[in-house]
């Protein structure tokens, strides 16, 4: 039973991960990743870590992945292009992966350290009470540092993604593609207005070529 569940969800998990690599559209990759996370939550339950399993679903699949999906939708990301870089990466990456995975699997498959007995299904060893006590006693300092980490993450996200109305004049003198600059100035505005601006910028570019 335990083994059967493990194999079923391990297969789903690996299939999801392969699908993440194989899919060309980011939204499909994101959904594959959610499948991986969901099946990992089941594996955590099998390992007796009920609280981690719950958090995995709530925080990882629920919050972080929603953020990803949200950004994909916001930026209207399309299917990925195949470029020369990606083909090179594919040619080097796949054999490299097989070697790395082979080495890791070989070493870890033989890893049978002296350990305790496995848990029966349904048995848990990490009740939330014990985890909370551990977090607030032994790991109090890392826990408090975490709060700073979250604070700077919020602050950084606001700071970096904040909309700025008036783009500064481009001071970088070395920029080779002037066209890119004009497009960029236009691109900093919102979506619909941005498209209009961009068209106007392209128009201006064309005019300049004519006068030249």
């Amino acid at each position, binding site marked *: 039973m335990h083994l059967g569940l493990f194999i079923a969800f391990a297969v789903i998990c690996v299939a999801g991960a392969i699908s*993440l690599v194989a899919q060309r559209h980011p939204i499909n990759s994101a959904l594959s990743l959610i499948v991986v996370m969901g099946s990992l939550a089941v594996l955590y339950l099998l390992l007796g870590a009920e609280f981690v399993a719950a958090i995995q679903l709530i925080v990882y699949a629920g919050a*972080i992945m929603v953020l990803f999906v949200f950004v994909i939708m916001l930026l209207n990301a399309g299917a990925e292009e195949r470029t020369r870089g990606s083909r090179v990466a594919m040619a080097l990456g796949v054999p490299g992966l097989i070697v790395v995975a082979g080495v890791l699997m070989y070493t870890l498959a033989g890893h049978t350290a002296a350990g305790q007995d496995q848990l029966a299904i349904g048995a848990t060893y990490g009740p939330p009470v014990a985890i909370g006590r551990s977090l607030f006693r032994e790991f109090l300092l890392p826990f408090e540092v975490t709060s700073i980490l*979250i604070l700077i993450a919020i602050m950084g996200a606001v700071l970096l993604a904040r909309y700025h109305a008036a783009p500064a004049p481009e001071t970088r003198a070395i920029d080779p593609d002037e066209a890119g600059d004009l497009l960029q100035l236009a691109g900093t505005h919102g979506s619909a207005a941005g498209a209009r601006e961009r068209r106007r910028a392209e128009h201006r570019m064309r005019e300049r070529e004519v006068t030249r």
Partner: protein
Amino acid sequence: MTVPLSYYLVLSAILFSLGVLAFVVKRNIITVFMSIELMLNAVNLSFVSFAAHWHRLSGQIFVFFVMVVAAAEAAVGLAIIIAVFRTRETLNIDRVNLLKL
């Protein structure tokens, strides 16, 4: 019928390697970023299975911290991606090339 620890570790190694592969191969910045999340998930599986193996809680605690880190990196990373997209209108990593590599 129980599952040996090594099965979980092998699964974790497979997921981790797939994450590394996706990081190298994928060209969309957001997908590249998701592959890092996959790697961190593999790390978490490894921690939880070792925690079960040793019957110690600290492995599970580490998982929470990895999750916090993943969330913080996702928030900052996606904000940077938005900023890059604003100035360039592309999500292809090969086109983000003002700085020579």
